[in-house]
């Protein structure tokens, strides 16, 4: 269908956020981003959206781990412990390749885990796969 795909990007580094949005622009004209820069605000925003109803929810969440206030692992835990929010695909996109971050993310049902940095061409390819896999409807 022709509806907008809403992506919540939780990323505190503006430059990184810009790159992600740029990468998606080329492969997904219907994608609209909301950027939140800390974990606590992300959790609050998602709780608000959950109360408003299904149509307020993002179609996809892209989540960094190193975030101010509450980190991405905590945000992921909150998301996946909710029946409504838990069904939203969550892509971890982070600088961390620490085993504990990877394992913890999958244990808490992250849909996938990708490490930065990515060259723009790779980021675009990744954005395309993400869009084709998780934003089809």
């Amino acid at each position, binding site marked *: 269908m022709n509806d907008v795909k809403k992506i919540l990007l939780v990323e505190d580094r503006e430059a990184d956020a810009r790159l992600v949005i740029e990468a998606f622009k080329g492969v997904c004209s219907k994608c609209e981003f909301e950027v939140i820069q800390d974990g606590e605000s992300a959790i609050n925003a998602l709780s608000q959206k959950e109360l408003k109803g299904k149509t307020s929810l993002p179609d996809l969440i892209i989540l960094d781990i190193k975030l101010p206030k509450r980190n991405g692992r905590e945000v992921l835990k909150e998301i996946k412990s909710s029946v409504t929010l838990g*069904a939203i695909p969550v892509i971890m996109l982070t600088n961390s390749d620490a085993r504990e971050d990877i*394992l913890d993310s999958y*244990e808490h049902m992250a849909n*996938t*885990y*990708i490490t930065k940095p990515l060259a723009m061409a*790779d980021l675009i390819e990744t954005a395309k796969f993400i869009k*084709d*896999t998780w934003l089809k409807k």
Partner: protein
Amino acid sequence: MTEITLLLVEDKPSDVRLVMEAFKETGIHANMSVVGNGEDAINFLLKKGQYSDAPRPDLILLDLKLPKKNGHEVIKKVRETDDISLIPIIVLSNSDAEPDIQKAYKYQANCYITKPFKMSEFVETVKLIEKFWLNRVKLPKNK
């Protein structure tokens, strides 16, 4: 390069062949085990019976419409079992029915991909899945 072990749960020999073909074309080196029904998939993952020496897969490619136990039941069982709960599950199914998709995500499949009808597109899709999951993604490989 670390070796990847895959479990393909697929009852249609033609689709198994297409997945194998896709693998050969990407040149990505992976050990693939194949089982043809949901019950065998669960026994493989739990190392039960004839599967007592089965390797723990790093990734599962899972059809939904399977004999004995269906794909949704397999997802549920994997997620409920501590040792294997975090193995990424990629559903690769003929069904594009919304209830099937929603149920798979509800049970925490990592992603859901509908098999294309055309053989060439099927192979391309599997190649893209491999490239993404085996090259781009960090998998929760243990040890």
